[in-house]
């Protein structure tokens, strides 16, 4: 295995290394490390043709591998006899990795010239710098051009595409000067990331002499591609002009409202239900206000926890515990409801009365008919079915986190409600002041609806703190919460009207009458499920 070839290579390497130790470290550094392959493509569009000034800069390791491929005499050095055929052949092979399309049709690039250099890199070891010039003619019909660089697509590296025009109009987002000065001076500070531009697409007007109009020239074009979601992006708005702020607030509001509408929000339907069942507009507004305040405070609190206590509490660690808590809550409420209902059904000959469809048991939603005994079970039924549906829905969307906390919201409210039943259920003929009940339940509901901050809002808050824009962040979160609450309230109002329509239909059939008990079992089962899941996440089961 050992032969002279390897020895010679080794001696060369060692000599170079020894030399390099005597020299100060070369200032030339690759932005990503010594195995990167870096790309630059400078596109120039004129009326007749498009040219591509393509540079490939291989750091020490790939340069070594590449040199080994054409080092025919095995001296480890790139001699001109070896490199001359190499660089044009290499450019030809790069050509097949470049995808240039003119008016969406693949264009054939011609190689006009090529060259190669071996600038010393770390420790004086050679790097490889290949330059290829391609071109292709353009016709007058050209309206758009796209270009993609697929060479060494898996290897780490700086990838930059720059576009200029000679007396032609260009439309699109592009840079017209090279940040790296054609891969000769990589920005080396910690605050800039390597570019990763692999493709570009732009419009062309060959007849326009207005020159180039780059939309994002000089800037860091890569920033334009990091958009996450419209809401979280708002906090990084460059300049806070009045229209920009108004626009930001509008987006926040809409985003909050949309957040309330997304699947998996038990709180939406529960809130809607409570309001719809016996509430008025006043209740709906009250609910909205509670949710807004709670959500805003919640975002603040969790933001502060994340900022200052992250080293003690890992936020992700909290979620299973929250899940466990809510699971136990829900299971407890469900069992409580079940026993209560089952017992009352036995004592009062519930089944017997089902048959007769006793008028007292006929569901009557009218607030005027204040018989809580007949009304409450129906309530539960509608609520539970709605939330159970909601539940399985969010489940199907692999949203374990959402799933937990929204289940929490929903059933948390039921807890309050159930307690109320328990307290007052036997006072058959007492005319309960509905206002009082509703306010209490509404408060609990509003709080639980806003208690756990939505992730987007949290991101905005943290961003605001980091950017020292706490005031702006607070306003955005507040408006987001308002949007959330408005959606809740709006659905609530809808239900108020819908509920009035339903009053006219007497419900019949045994199954419907049995549903209060079944619903209690449903709640219990879901609670048990959530609890077990949380336990499993905690590694206890």
């Amino acid at each position: 295995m050992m032969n002279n070839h390897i020895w010679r290579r080794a001696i060369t390497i060692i000599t170079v290394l020894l030399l390099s130790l005597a020299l100060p470290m070369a200032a030339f550094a690759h932005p990503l490390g010594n195995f990167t392959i870096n790309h630059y493509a400078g596109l120039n569009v004129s009326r007749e043709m498009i040219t591509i000034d393509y540079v490939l800069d291989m750091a020490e390791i790939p340069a070594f591998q590449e040199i080994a491929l054409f080092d025919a005499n095995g001296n480890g050095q790139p001699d001109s006899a070896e490199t001359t055929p190499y660089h044009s052949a290499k450019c030809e092979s790069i050509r097949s990795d470049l995808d240039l399309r003119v008016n969406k049709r693949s264009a054939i690039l011609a190689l006009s010239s090529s060259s190669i250099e071996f600038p010393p890199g770390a420790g004086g070891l050679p790097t490889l710098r290949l330059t290829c010039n391609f071109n292709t003619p353009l016709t007058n019909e050209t309206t758009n051009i796209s270009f993609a660089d697929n060479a060494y697509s898996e290897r780490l590296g700086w990838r930059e595409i720059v576009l200029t025009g000679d007396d032609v109009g260009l439309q699109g987002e592009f840079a017209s000067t090279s940040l790296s000065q054609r891969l000769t001076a990589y920005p080396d500070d910690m605050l800039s990331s390597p570019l990763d531009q692999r493709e570009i697409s732009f419009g062309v007007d060959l007849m326009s002499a207005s020159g180039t109009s780059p939309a994002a020239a000089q800037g860091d074009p890569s920033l334009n591609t990091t958009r996450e979601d419209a809401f979280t992006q708002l906090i990084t708005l460059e300049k806070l002009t009045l229209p920009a702020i108004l626009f930001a607030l509008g987006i926040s509001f809409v985003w909050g409202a949309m957040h309330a509408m997304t699947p998996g929000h038990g709180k939406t339907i529960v809130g809607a239900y409570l309001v719809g069942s016996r509430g008025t507009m006043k209740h709906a507004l009250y609910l909205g206000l509670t949710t807004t305040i709670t959500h805003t405070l919640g975002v603040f609190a969790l933001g502060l926890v994340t900022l200052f206590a992250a080293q003690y509490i890992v936020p992700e660690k909290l979620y299973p515990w929250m899940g466990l808590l809510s699971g136990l809550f829900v299971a407890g409420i469900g069992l409580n409801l079940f026993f209560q209902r089952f017992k009352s059904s036995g004592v009062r000959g519930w089944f017997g009365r089902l048959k007769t469809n006793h008028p007292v048991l006929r569901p009557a939603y009218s607030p005027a008919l204040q018989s809580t005994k007949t009304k409450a079970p129906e309530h539960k039924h509608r609520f539970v079915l709605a939330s159970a549906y909601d539940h399985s829905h969010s489940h199907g969307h692999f949203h374990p986190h959402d799933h937990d906390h929204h289940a929490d919201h929903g059933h948390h409210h039921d807890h309050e409600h159930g307690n109320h039943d328990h307290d007052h259920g036997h006072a058959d003929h007492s005319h309960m002041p509905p206002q009082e009940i509703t306010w209490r339940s509404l408060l609990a509901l509003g709080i639980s609806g806003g208690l756990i901050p939505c992730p987007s809002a949290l991101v905005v808050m943290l961003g605001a703190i980091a950017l020292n824009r706490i005031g702006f962040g607070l306003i955005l979160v507040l408006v987001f919460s308002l949007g959330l609450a408005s959606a809740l309230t709006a659905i609530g109002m809808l239900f108020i009207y819908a509920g009035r329509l339903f009053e006219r239909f007497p419900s019949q059939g045994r199954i419907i009458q049995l549903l209060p008990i079944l619903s209690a079992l449903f709640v219990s089962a879901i609670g048990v499920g959530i609890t077990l899941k949380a336990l499993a996440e905690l590694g206890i089961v």
Partner: protein
Amino acid sequence: MSKRKTILLLSFVIIILVVSNLSGVFFNSSPYLPDPEDIDGSTLATIPSVDVAIKTVQNKIKQNPKDAVSYTLLGDLYIRQARETGDVSGYQRAETALNQALEILPGYSPAGSLLASVYYAQHEFAKALTLAEKVYESNTKNSQVRIVIADSYLSLGNYEDAEVIYKEIGETNVTPPLLARLAHLAELKGNSDEALTLIQRAAGEALNSGGTKESVAWYLLRVGDMYFNTGEIREAGAYYEASLRVFDNYHLALAGLGKVRAAQGKYDQAIGYYQHAINIVPQPDFLAALGDIYMLTGQTDEAKIQYETVEYIGKLAAINQQIYNRQLANFYSDHDMHLDEALDLALTELESRKDIYGYDSAAWAYYKNGNYKDAQHMMDQAMALGTRDALLFYHAGMIAHALGDNQQARNHLHQALTINPYFSILYSEEARKTLDALQSQAGG
């Protein structure tokens, strides 16, 4: 049947329906893993990619250059980037960022503990230990830094102290990273079954708690490694594939699959996997393994290019850091190249790092240099923990053989092949032949 019974029956049916609907979540999320075929990472949260996260934090720092927390976060992200891409220069960037954070806010414990872990990742174990202990003194609530302390102990060969700390942390806070360390400890102590259980639990919990895709893929990779090390290469392959599904183009999983295919004798596929891994990151161990397969299949020219590149990277890295010293020493010994240099590298490394694999590396270099007595001495240290690693037993067997202790050689070689018949494409065959020769000698 009375109505009440009907109702109860109906109730139970509903409970069963609900529970079975939820069971998909909680039964699979038992501490152990689902079948590897069922793992694809689609349930993992979509955390912003590390590049996007880095840009976001960079922008924050631009707005507020005195933000020590963001610098710390940036350091943390550079560490994650180095792990994900295999580009060790990320650690240097992380070091710069964390030093910046500490300059703004001296004594900021999260930055200190991350900096210690950067030193650790760059194989500066003593430095990592010193810093981590200092950080821990100032903030005894920082459990992150305790892990760095224990890790450094482990790498320096102080297994007792490492174990004490791991167990202590485990009493209050069992996380996947801790489980992975306990698994490694069990592996070192020769408890392969316990190690496998622990690492599966770590992977399962990481999968369920929604870590980054790279971290989940890493745990799955470790499950694969542990299967491979006990000779169960089919399971190993399945977990490497799962790891690859969770984190696209994961270079370590690609190399793992290369290793499995080579063990199965599917050399073309093995070459394909290794080449793919090398296209992403030309890591010296990948290149060496690819070279070995080329050698085995008679493609000596191709093999030579790979071997030369390994050497080149070792030298290049030596200019900046020490990460590949041991790998290079082992590579030289394994390929009978620069044997005196191999011994030098191994002994230098052992001076600062007395763990069992340091002793093994020195033993093997001594053996290749024909110094069997010292090799034996080093090998005894390497096997002191009772680690059931086929390669250790192979080395011990060959050293015993060279010293003429045929009984011991037979035992060790037999043990090596029992633990993992596929332990090395270079040496499995050699072990078998030597053992056969020894046995026929003993029989005859």
